């Protein structure tokens, strides 16, 4: 009597475990499309799911052929990181002088985001396979070392006492007890490591000239990811509290600082504007103003979130937090999207002599 009921529940659970995430994904895509329609967001800021899909199908063979080297780099870097990472972890756990000598250096080396080495590696090893495998390895191997050594250390002391009481060698204890004991942790490390390997391999792809916005956000994301994955609980809390504010401030500053060299919107605008207009004063002016506005807006978003965090420590009321952390940044961003759309039109209409400059959108 109970068995058919049980199996029905099991199959239902299987369906649910598939149906719920699928529904959530569909909802998210629908929401994405809807937001673009409602706010009329430009494709250079956020392409619609439909556009992404058509790009995917339209350039399928190109994307597929370009994925092969990336996957190669990721897998190679990850494989090297796995072998080297686990070997170092074994050495750390079994040989105390090695631990004392190497572990602090290892942790210290992680304070520098490895993405920062990317340009150096490109100079040393060129745009070929090597530089990308190395950066994928550099990023992926640390979480593997940390998790594998933590796992091998987590063997209960009584278990180790038992093992030592049998006169077993260190290697036998490693093989029969420490290593199998650490497998769950080792796989956690590998899981994080493979994600990092992808970040590493993609970060060094020779997209030249690199887009300021992409490069900045990639570096920020990597720093936050490394902090979040490898930091202590305290670091985690710190990241959770300040990440949103910090990202706004840093992006804003980078955008403002680079306006004299290259306004970030100009990089996108060039994609959709014939080269003949790139040096026109109107084109330059539009992008300088837009970049300035975006830089100030992002600084404003960051500052608003800083205030939100600061207030949050002093009051339990949710309203200021919601207002400063969500509503004001949201409004700023919506205004900026509208402004980016209308401003170029206004400028080009005012000076009909240079009407063909349709920057930055199509």
């Amino acid at each position: 009597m109970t068995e058919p009921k049980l199996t029905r529940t099991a199959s239902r659970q299987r369906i649910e475990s598939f149906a719920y995430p699928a529904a959530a994904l569909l909802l998210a895509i629908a929401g994405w499309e809807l937001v673009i329609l409602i706010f009329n967001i430009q494709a250079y800021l956020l392409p619609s799911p439909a556009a992404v899909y058509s790009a995917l199908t339209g350039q399928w063979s190109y994307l597929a052929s370009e994925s092969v080297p990336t996957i190669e780099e990721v897998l190679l870097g990850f494989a090297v990181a796995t072998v080297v990472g686990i070997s170092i972890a074994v050495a750390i756990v079994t040989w105390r002088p090695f631990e004392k000598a190497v572990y602090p250096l290892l942790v210290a080396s992680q304070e520098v985001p490895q993405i920062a080495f990317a340009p150096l590696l490109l100079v040393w090893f060129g745009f070929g396979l090597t530089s990308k495998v190395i950066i994928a390895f550099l990023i992926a191997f640390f979480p593997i070392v940390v998790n594998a050594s933590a796992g091998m250390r987590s063997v209960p002391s009584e278990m180790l006492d038992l093992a030592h009481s049998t006169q077993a060698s260190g290697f036998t204890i490693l093989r029969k007890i420490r290593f199998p004991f650490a497998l769950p942790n080792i796989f956690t490390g590998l899981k994080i490591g493979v994600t990092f390997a992808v970040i590493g391999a993609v970060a060094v792809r020779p997209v030249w000239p690199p887009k300021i916005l992409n490069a900045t956000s990639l570096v920020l994301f990597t720093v936050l990811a490394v902090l979040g994955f490898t930091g202590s609980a305290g670091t985690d809390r710190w990241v959770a509290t300040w990440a949103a504010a910090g990202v706004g401030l840093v992006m804003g500053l980078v955008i403002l600082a680079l306006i004299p060299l290259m306004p970030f919107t100009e990089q996108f605008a060039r994609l959709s504007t014939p080269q003949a207009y790139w040096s026109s004063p109107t084109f330059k002016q539009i992008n300088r103003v837009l970049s300035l506005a975006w830089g100030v807006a992002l600084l404003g978003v960051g500052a608003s979130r800083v205030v939100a965090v600061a207030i949050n420590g002093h009051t339990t009321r949710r309203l200021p937090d919601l207002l400063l952390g969500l509503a004001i940044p949201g409004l700023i961003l919506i205004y900026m999207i509208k402004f980016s759309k209308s401003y170029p039109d206004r400028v080009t209409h005012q000076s009909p002599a240079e009407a063909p400059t349709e920057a930055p959108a199509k």
Partner: protein
Amino acid sequence: MPMTDQGGTPSATPPGADAGASPDAVRFEGVGLTYATARGPVRALADITLGVPRGHFVSIVGPSGCGKSSLLMLTAGLRSCTEGRVLIGATPVSGPQADNGIVFQNDTLLDWRSALDNVLLQVELRRLPKARYRQRATDLLHSVGLAGFEHSRPYELSGGMRQRIAICRALIHDPHLLLMDEPFGALDALTRDQMMCDLQALWLEQRKTVLFVTHSIPEAIFLSDRVVVMTSRPGQIDKIIDIALPRPRELHMTTEPEFNSYVSVIRQVFERRGVLKDEREQNPARP
């Protein structure tokens, strides 16, 4: 150390004890253990002199932190004493031993191994021929009531069953000395009683020398030929009591006057040393 009747000499010979040339399987000679800590040296054991006669079941009972577990670690060669020496037979202990088996409070089984393979871990770690011990491992599991569970994983079994596997693992290579560190400490009261009876049956059959650490007074009396009472700071032997109850002992004996007189002798040691206080002493103002 006043008011002790300490002594390593074997007294009343229990049934089945070997009358060999060297009567003691284990001897502690003036053993002391001092730890270096950040706040200066801490004396964990002081002046332990004790003999464990071959084939005897000897319990060490005492409060937490009296160093009774350290004594086992010294015997197993997993720690070194800072004063005196520990002898196994006639040889001073200087490292892990070939001829002992250890059972801890936690069963320390490996979850990815079956019951049988957990028992055989001892054989593998000691680099003994595994094939030769397979049958013995099965027999041991049967003898502790685990027939049919040879291929179960530890997480499928109860605490008592897991501890039985750990005992089999300690016995698989047929050691002469069995070291047990509060082996039933993590079990519920009913299971403890059952384990006590089963361990006695196993001991009567195999006649190993057992050094058994516990903080349960009835458990120590029920199982032992001799109970060593220890007190703390520093850990030292206060009293050694030979238990003359006939074997096999049965659970109902634990409520009989003879058994209880042993309990009260041990209690008195703890009361005298302030380990146990009854209500009157705690509240002297009360009538």
